[in-house]
């Protein structure tokens, strides 16, 4: 868990295309990360899903991938 100026980053979640590039760099920096995309062109996408559908479901409080994403805890 990276701690910078009281901001805790438990895990980074990267959505849509190019999310893999950022996911890998977060990990190199010691921050746990996973990516989400409908495509898996390079065989490295952690979560293959229709993000537009996930957004729709989350918006109306149906189960979605957002349920597994924790909100950040800001330092005081």
């Amino acid at each position, binding site marked *: 868990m990276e701690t910078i*100026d009281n901001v805790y980053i438990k895990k980074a979640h990267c959505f849509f295309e190019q999310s893999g590039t*950022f996911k890998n760099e977060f990990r190199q*920096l010691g921050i746990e990360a996973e990516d989400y995309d409908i495509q898996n062109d390079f065989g490295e996408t952690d979560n293959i899903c229709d993000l*537009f559908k996930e*957004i729709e479901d*989350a918006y109306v409080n149906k189960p979605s991938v957002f349920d597994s994403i924790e*909100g950040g805890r800001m330092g005081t």
Partner: protein
Amino acid sequence: MAFFPCIQFCDAKTLIFKGKAISQRNKNLGEIMDKNIEYAKVREYNFIQLMKLVAVAYKRCLRLIIENPWNTSGGTYLQNNFIEPAVVDGNRMLRGDYFVKPTAYWFINFSPKNGFTYQFDKKQKIIMKSKGAKKAGTCSTERSLISSDYARNFICDFIIGKKQPEIDLTLF
């Protein structure tokens, strides 16, 4: 972080809605309007999805960064119809990317740090000379490409506030 699909918001779409795209040259006004109605519906759908994403993040207290192209002459759809971004990176090559490609970043539920890692070491790629998409209406992988150097520098500069003296060499 959300690299939100940008093809519907790019300034090239403005030409289509104005009826001035090269692909519309041989079409009559009725055909142009029929097609533009379809395009407008797709763009509206994408825009609503973007706003729902922001709403979901805000209500759940998730720290979210949205990325999308920016245009220095003010041509993208989001520039004229969306909340202001927290950061506009006018030249991504200065942080180690392949493209100049001005890009905006919206920070939801937190503010960006203000670092700057200078890494100007790539041969420039030109978007218009990059390979096109395999499927019409989508952005090609090459045009969407972000270098791993840029990704790292962005994270260090704007998210975690980490200095990288081994990369950002100074004269002194």
